[in-house]
């Protein structure tokens, strides 16, 4: 890991700065100040549950045969053999597989919801190439039916990003797909950092070049990134100076707040980038302005620069096999994920799709099988790290979710069979220890939008 030169300044995501002109706050006062749009997520009530005798892929890379998983008070208590139920509800896991809930590091659910019509197309503020000031959570519609479809596919956490029309698309947000959430705040993963979405390549150049404005080219893209970060450095410096008593803080600038948040490490950078050479340019920019890149997204050519990604500690969030739909996706190969993994990199299976998010396990299965056919030795347990631990790491929530280690949030999926296959289905999904999906009991969770439509049960 490269060290950060900038001291961490009080520019936590969304922290109001307007009040700063008055007397400095004490730490307590700062803590009392509710951040705007803060999470109001509350775990559903749960009772202690023991899953007995399952094959466990623990998300940390291991596979345990005939193992028990104990959850209590919303947390994982233990994973191992012959755990004592101690009053917990016992669920028979024999013949079944248990994994951590899947974390999708790249979704647009809620921002491009179903139904997809002009009025709901809410994911790209494609009005100027730098819209670092927008937050995608302000576009997320909690009633998107896609959220509960994703839960049925084993998803317990997802990172929703703005689209890729802009060089700086705005802030992304980590969500829980909570059934019945009335507000996006009720879905926000507590204390998860926000991200900033950036985009390389064809999309920004096409969108803005098509309007005869900048960027119209790859070089225009890079100039746009660099100038924006140069401006943000000045803004961050003035903030820092003001904190140290030197001069007034700058006027609030929402765009600059996001960029400065990236510079100081409070906001994670999630960068849409397909080509190896463009990822390398992005890394150069991160050195020039001294910030970290959490992950490259899509990263169709990540396999060509695994060494660079490892050296820089940057994850790659990848489709299993998409290719050819654009020239920058021409070199897609099915072994991209396993090659990044084999090179010691942080490989992530992502969806970028309201359909794909429902079966990311199948995408991991393809990547695993293709990697093995290419001669790599990869276990099922390792493959599951692509679905939970590694995305948790890229979202900086890996101390809370992503594995079944004791103390982690009890996000657990019971699969009917080996989930690295086509036929396995999620039978039960637990979020913070609470059963939120059961294929036999509670599999029909219509959003408000779906209620009362002619086809629904009881309405025909």
């Amino acid at each position: 890991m490269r060290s950060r030169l900038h001291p961490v300044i009080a520019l936590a995501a969304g922290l109001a700065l307007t009040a700063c002109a008055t007397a400095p706050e004490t730490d307590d006062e700062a803590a009392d100040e509710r951040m705007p749009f803060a999470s109001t997520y509350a775990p559903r009530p749960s009772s202690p549950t023991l899953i007995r005798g399952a094959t466990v892929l623990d998300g940390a890379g291991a596979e345990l045969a005939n193992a028990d998983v104990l959850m209590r008070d919303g947390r994982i208590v233990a994973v191992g053999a012959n755990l004592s139920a101690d009053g917990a509800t016992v669920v028979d896991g024999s013949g079944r597989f248990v994994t951590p809930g899947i974390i999708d590091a790249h979704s647009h659910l809620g921002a491009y919801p179903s139904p997809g019509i002009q009025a709901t197309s809410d994911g790209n503020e494609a009005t100027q190439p730098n819209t670092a000031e927008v937050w995608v959570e302000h576009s997320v519609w909690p009633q998107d039916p896609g959220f509960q479809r994703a839960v049925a596919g084993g998803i317990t956490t997802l990172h929703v990003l703005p689209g890729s029309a802009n060089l700086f698309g705005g802030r992304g947000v980590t969500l829980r797909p909570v059934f019945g959430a009335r507000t996006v705040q009720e879905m926000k993963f507590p204390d998860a950092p926000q991200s900033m979405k950036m985009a390389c390549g064809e999309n920004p150049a096409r969108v803005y070049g098509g309007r005869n404005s900048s960027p119209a080219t790859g070089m225009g893209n890079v100039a746009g990134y660099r100038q924006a970060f140069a401006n943000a450095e000045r803004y961050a410096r003035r903030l820092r100076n003001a904190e140290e008593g030197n001069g007034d803080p700058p006027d609030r600038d929402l765009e600059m707040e996001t960029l400065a948040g990236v510079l100081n490490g409070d906001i994670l950078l999630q960068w849409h980038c397909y080509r190896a050479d463009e990822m390398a340019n992005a890394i150069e920019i991160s050195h020039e302005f001294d910030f970290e890149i959490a992950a490259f997204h899509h990263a169709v050519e990540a396999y060509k620069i695994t060494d660079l990604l490892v050296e820089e500690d940057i994850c790659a969030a990848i489709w299993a096999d998409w290719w050819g739909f654009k020239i920058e996706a021409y070199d897609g190969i099915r072994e991209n994920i396993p090659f990044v993994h084999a090179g010691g990199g942080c490989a992530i299976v992502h969806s970028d799709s309201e359909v794909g998010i429902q079966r990311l396990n199948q995408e991991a299965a393809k990547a695993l099988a293709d990697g093995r056919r290419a001669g790599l030795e990869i276990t099922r347990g390792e493959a599951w790290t692509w679905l939970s631990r590694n995305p948790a790491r890229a979202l900086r929530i890996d101390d809370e979710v992503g594995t079944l280690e004791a103390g982690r949030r009890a996000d657990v999926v019971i699969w009917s069979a080996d989930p690295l296959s086509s036929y396995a289905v999620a039978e039960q999904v637990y979020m913070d220890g609470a059963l939120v999906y059961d294929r036999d009991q509670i599999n029909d969770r219509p959003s408000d939008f779906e209620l009362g439509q002619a086809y629904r049960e009881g309405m025909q």
Partner: protein
Amino acid sequence: MRVLSALLIAAALAAPAAAETVLIRDGRVVTNGAAGTIEGGDVLIVDGRVSAVGADIAAPRGARIVEANGRYVTPGAFAAMSEIGLSEISGSGAPNDADLDSDDISAAADASRAFNPQVTAVAVTRMEGVTHAAIAPSSTDTIFGGRGALVSMSGEPDSLLRGNAFMVVELGETGANRVGGSRAALWPAFEAALRDAREYPNRYRSGQGGAVLSELDAAALQPFARGQGLFLVHIESAADIRRLIRFKRDNPALRFAIHGGAEAWQVADDLARAQIPVIVDPLSNLPDRFERLSARLDNAALLDRAGVTVAIAPAPGTVDAHQARLVLQLAGNAVANGMEWDAAFAAVSRTPAEIFGVGTTLGRLERNYQADIVIWDGDPLQVTSAPDAVFIEGVEQPLVSRQTLLRDRYHPSRGQRQ
């Protein structure tokens, strides 16, 4: 040595070996026919055709023996809808023959005149067990998508099987948008087009002209308007499907299949009675369009159970030029959601061949069928499986593509920088 291997690879990509006599022995042979699945079955290939299927077939003199050792042996998969061969790259401003933006020609557009068997996607697709595809343009400016074609994945100059194989027509939301935004105009426009076509060439030569069609489009539509060709209708909603069923009742000579049909399960019995086949997407389960509000994962299973002829392909709007190989994953998901395995496999092999009128030569492992055969390293509907061998017309295909060359160039065992 390097040059030589490069030449060999180039040769492998370009020119497969000639057809030979091959005996595939001891497979789990999915015939797609009356014999069902034969455990420990043999398949004899002679002159590009299946010569015999069964147990203990004697090897003719000089036959090459391929031991299947219990592996799945199946007909090649048939992508029931694809744009493969219509572009090398579909976006990026690259040439894309699937995307037609013209006021002058729509029904007359002919996919067979655009298909290029040498696009890299063909090798990518066949090495995953897909040997045939139905192709059509994805987008025109009218309700007619143009004339589709049936193609093989051999990559050979003769891999166009049939042009003029079907006529795509949009009779749902997309179609409505092309006639001013309303279904109220859609069916009248379709009926007027059929009249124009039936009255071709007289009304054009008399100077009257067509009500809605150009002369060129009327000529192309005529055989379909006379019941001599298949209309492939893009519709999703139960209401639109009911309209089509009524229309067919009033026009029994016309032939229809549905592509889409997300709400078809609601009218399954009517579809079975009307004998209208449906090509569905087993992943379509979101109310992402108002015409798909009741989309559900077990659509294919419910239709099959009701006796509807069901094939599987991506939904209209998601058909592409590069991922035809994923039809087997789609079929696997149909199985995961209640469809019988045999029906699901047929839905991506035999059934598309039947819908498009080539079911007597493609899609089964029976005597005299074309020898399009795949030997799999596992259950072909499992995402973890892949072909060990692919034969098209009896010719074993190289399992090499641009992607495998990239894979080998960047394989971790060879180091990153060489």
